[in-house]
């Protein structure tokens, strides 16, 4: 499964697990409007770390948290490259 597909699957899974209503997913969707709260996003990052063995935030104190879902996916794709 590609990084993108894994992220989209996890976003859906975390929302279901945390009983959140998810907005229709698109690259332009702002994460704050996605229906995922901070805890959901934290859980998403942790589960992607577990599944992809990838944490683009680790060891980088200055990284800006991505604003849109597209930014978020790109951050992971770049880290995987």
């Amino acid at each position: 499964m590609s990084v993108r597909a894994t992220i989209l699957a996890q976003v859906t899974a975390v929302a279901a697990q945390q009983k959140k209503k998810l907005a229709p997913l698109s690259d332009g969707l702002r994460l704050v409007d996605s229906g995922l709260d901070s805890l959901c996003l934290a859980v998403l990052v942790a589960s992607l770390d577990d599944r992809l063995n990838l944490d683009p935030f680790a060891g980088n104190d200055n990284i800006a948290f991505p604003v849109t879902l597209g930014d978020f996916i790109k951050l992971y794709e770049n880290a995987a490259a």
Partner: protein
Amino acid sequence: MQPPERSSLRQLAAAAGLSSRRFIADATGRVSMAEACGTVGTAPASPPTWLPGRLPVVPAETFRACSVMVSSARQLPAVLALLRLDGIAGRIVLCPPDAAPDHLPAVIAEARISAIISDGTGPALPAGTPVFGCPADAPPDLTDDAVGAATQWLLFTSGTTGRPKLVVHTLPSLIGPLDDGLGLAPDAIWSTFYDVRRYGGLTILLRALLGGGSMVLSRADEPAADFLARAGRSGVTHISGTPTHWRRALMSGAAARMAPRYVRLSGEVADQAILNQLAAAFPAAEVAHAFASTEAGVAFDVRDGLAGFPAGLIGKPGMKAELKVVDGSLRIRSARTADRYLGATSSMTDADGFVDTGDMLELRGDRYHFVGRREGVINVGGQKVHPEEVEAVLNRHPAVQMARVRGRASPVTGALVMAEIVLRASAGAEPSPILPDALRDDILEACRRALPPHKVPVTLRRVASLDTTGSSGKLSRRTQDEHA
């Protein structure tokens, strides 16, 4: 058990009776109480055969008013040294067998140690301080003419990282809280998973010595099943340990080799699951959980089989130890708390004489429950999570034998809750870090039912075993956010 303030440990142990039934044993040897107190005939001409002869043995009197450190891997030699040096030495530092050798030079300097009593085992000792075997003789009893202050007993604090602090006690401060009538039977045979160089173990040893009973000592590297079998063969009637010790004991499948009358938990929060499991495993035993800390001493014990303690104990008059809650943490005032940390200029008590235990309480109904250490708190986006609270939920799941919860760094919320679990033998297939999905979902669903979302573990990892912190027997807790 109220001692005259001038008596030595040896005098008090002898005063409780020296019947031939009384003994002290560890995995390597056994001595009668009379021999341990040095009252069999005259002083033995040679040290007991189980002491290696490589170290010089000098009369106990040599150490009068000296600061000595007692260090050995085995517990029996250390107990004998205590019996023979209390009332003689000015200060005795009880070095736990898992003390980091790197820390010993600083401890020796700070406590001004001039001699080490050892059996040649234990942590590597720094050069420069003379090492002796345990004195073989019984020094003369203290009399009213004896001058000088009581021997100081210095204990390492447990559960902290970095250099240990030394807590200053005396025999009266150690014995004072034990005046609860527990185990005052000539046939009581005490044991503990703890090491007696730790407060939790030392109080059990003192109960045995002063209450007229016997003592079966543990050994750090002894498998739980072997220790339980040995305790059973020795006829142990009263036994104590941490909840973690007890979970391991139950996991070992060897609990049935022992038939105690009294089972005690201390040192960690006793959740309802472990209390229930022990009540089922030892139907004939009273199961009690106690609260004590190295600094504040034994405060109280709870014998109704329920987790937490009755709220009425807070502020209750007439208690040996007075309790109050300040900012959610338990404070204890008692005449028997430790004096101070060695080298500290400030008192360890507040303006009213209470010791802040740092143990956080939560009132649920008419009982207070311990929800963890103040410093163990995991901060999830500003919301506090006490690991013990989540562990208690995990431990209630029928497939979970033991759980450890800690913080995991998160770029979003600062920290998240993660858990490592040991499955019961019957619950899983081959050990693997991977949990079957169905079981993972079931455990997490149980957490979601019992806990608000931020307290539900984000990561659930299966592990083969969980470490305990050496002789303190507590579940090891690495600092939170170790993932960062």
